[in-house]
């Protein structure tokens, strides 16, 4: 069992927890993920690591309540425990040798983008961050991003806070104005990462995307997390758990990834409703 050391609601649907997992904390690097199970009958879900502390053995996760498992997790209180917590899995984000990067985060993806921005900032890389949310209520981690970035641009889809529009608008402006980035790292909804990649393409800037497909074991056994890369015109199957989760944005078949992510949507909707009802009736 893994103890919940702290729990904090960042917005109405996004919660941050610190989990006591010293072996994971000792190794965790920005860009890696963990697999957790809330209880004995629970499913295994991957969550990207949002931070870790070697001294306290705490691993920070930030999750949005989207289905039955995240609903159950969200109902766990500080001091309670979750059944399983394995990691750190996947390859860390490559941060070496970059002088200037642009971090583009969307929604709860910003929770994962933050440690990447912080890792770059800590080694002296100049970080420009663009973070986007549907509306003001869903905004998270603004101060933390500001501290890690030389420049921070906040966007909301509905204009209820900061600039109106999506993240590709300021990205395009910066690139058109001749701003140089060694790399753009984008983390968020697949559709957003697709359009960030398309926006960057005419400017020939490398784009790294963080993929978060459906996974079960997360250790390179089940193949559920597979995605297709187009390398030199050839379609190649890769596994996000061991080959990723970071990939070259120009090679990822985003449309296929989006379709695969919807495989269990009807099942998840129903399971989430049933779980919500359980808590309502409790």
């Amino acid at each position: 069992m893994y103890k919940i050391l702290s729990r904090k609601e960042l917005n109405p649907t996004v919660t941050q927890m610190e989990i006591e997992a010293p072996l994971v904390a000792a190794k965790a690097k920005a860009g890696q993920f963990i697999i957790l199970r809330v209880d004995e009958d629970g499913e295994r879900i991957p969550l990207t690591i949002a931070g870790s502390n070697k001294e306290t053995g705490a691993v920070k996760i930030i999750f949005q309540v989207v289905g039955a498992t995240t609903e159950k997790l969200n109902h766990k209180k500080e001091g309670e425990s979750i059944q399983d917590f394995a990691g750190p899995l996947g390859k860390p984000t490559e941060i070496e040798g970059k002088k200037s990067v642009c971090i583009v985060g969307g929604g709860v993806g910003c929770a994962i983008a933050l440690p990447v921005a912080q890792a770059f900032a800590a080694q002296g890389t100049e970080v420009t961050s663009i973070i986007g949310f549907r509306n003001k209520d869903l905004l998270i981690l603004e101060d933390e991003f500001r501290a890690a970035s030389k420049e921070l641009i906040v966007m909301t889809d509905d204009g209820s806070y900061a600039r109106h529009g999506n993240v590709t608008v300021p990205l395009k402006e910066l690139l058109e104005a001749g701003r140089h980035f060694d790399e753009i790292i984008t983390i968020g909804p697949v559709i957003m990462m697709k359009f960030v990649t398309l926006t960057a393409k005419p400017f020939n800037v490398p784009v790294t995307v963080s993929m978060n497909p459906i996974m079960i074991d997360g250790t390179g056994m089940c193949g559920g997390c597979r995605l297709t890369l187009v390398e030199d015109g050839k379609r190649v199957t890769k596994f996000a758990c061991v080959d990723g989760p970071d990939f070259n944005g120009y090679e990822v078949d985003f449309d296929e990834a989006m379709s695969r992510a919807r495989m269990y949507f009807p099942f998840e909707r129903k399971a989430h409703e049933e779980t919500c009802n359980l808590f309502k009736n409790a």
Partner: protein
Amino acid sequence: MPLDPKKHEMPVQDPQVRAHNFSEVALGYTHEVAIAEAKRCLNCKNRPCVQGCPVNIAIPDFISCLKQDDIEGAYHVINKSSSLHAVCGRVCPQETQCESKCTLGIKFEPVGIGRLERFVADWHNANSNEAPKKVASNGHRVAIVGSGPSGLTCAGDLAKAGFEVTVYEALHTEGGVLVYGIPEFRLPKAIVAKEVDTLKQLGVEFVTNAVIGKTLTVDELFEQGNEAVFIGSGAGLPNFMNIPGEAFKGVYSANEFLTRSNLMKAFRDKCDTPIMKGGKVVVVGGGHVAMDAARTALRLGAEKVYIVYRRSMQELPARREEVEHAEEEGIQFELLRNPVEIIGYNNPDNPRDERNGFVTGCKVIKMELGEPDAKGRRRPIPVEGSEYVIDCDAVVIAIGTSPNPLIKSTTKGLEVNAHGGIIVNEDGLTSRANVYAGGDAVTGAATVISAMGAGKLAAKSIIEYFNK
């Protein structure tokens, strides 16, 4: 009494009934039948069956005990060579191992050695309260990577020799392929748990959720005070066919399909892990994993399950018994067929149609058998223009695995072969000092018992090394 030329039949659940439940198919010998079957053993002098057993169980000796109705005695004979009796009695391919060498088998059907082993193990588990005795420590610590058949066997043998053993398991439950791969109806998970429990009583420690190569490296296992490491990390990434359509929703690797059902318990109502149930299912492949996947799909409620295999029944590598069970249950074998494309739904007028991207069929081509290849198996050759589509809702691909890269990429000096399998010598030793390996991580996908044999060999080598 004249010798019965045939093995005593194994009672099984009725095919019509068992096709809809996950309870064990084979029900096991009764006491009387077991004794009667034991009496068929000739107790011949040259004991060829022992050579046929990858862990060299003293088969005639345990059968002799049985003949005298000393079941616990029989158990102790088996226990000297195998730590996973109840597992082996169920999943070993005895017909190509011990039973294939049986002297009685020259003229008649061989002795049902596997069925007798199962009887002895089940009887012991049900009737014996004898706790396994913990052996005094010899002060040496060994780490084992993976709690599948090779790891459990190695752990058992080392613990019995006084080693302090810690087994690291990447998943949340011990047992490896015995838990995530082999279905409940062939190997009840309670039996695996019992075997793991026995090892715990012998003093073996288990650490779950520990992914070696990530959570800890092999070098760190040495830094923590282990003097030897055995890598039994099992098979790795599933192979796909590299045909169009494999990314459609409803296409599973057998590993994923079986893991969802077995490890995550998707076959039960109360679990949270989803799996596609019902509809028509095509399973590609002819090995035991393909049989397990097909029979699981059927039990999950599929209205029709096809096995698509590119050679004929003669070359099909699964055990005969499993093929017969599958046929009885109504699984349809589409032999000499090979998938060329998986077809998915696409509504051109509505990109938001929820059915878009789901599997609707599997296009296969007919095959003919040509000349035998280097291994002596006749090579399948496609018959031009013979393609047709099998309508289906899911495709499960069971065509093998490639080794997992996690340990290889984080262990300096660990040599692997062209297929990514860890290279070992005749003692099970790798290219790294005091690092041993065995099972699928070395050989690629093979059997439970061959993995156990490898775990046993490594344990023997480790014991000899420290006794020098």
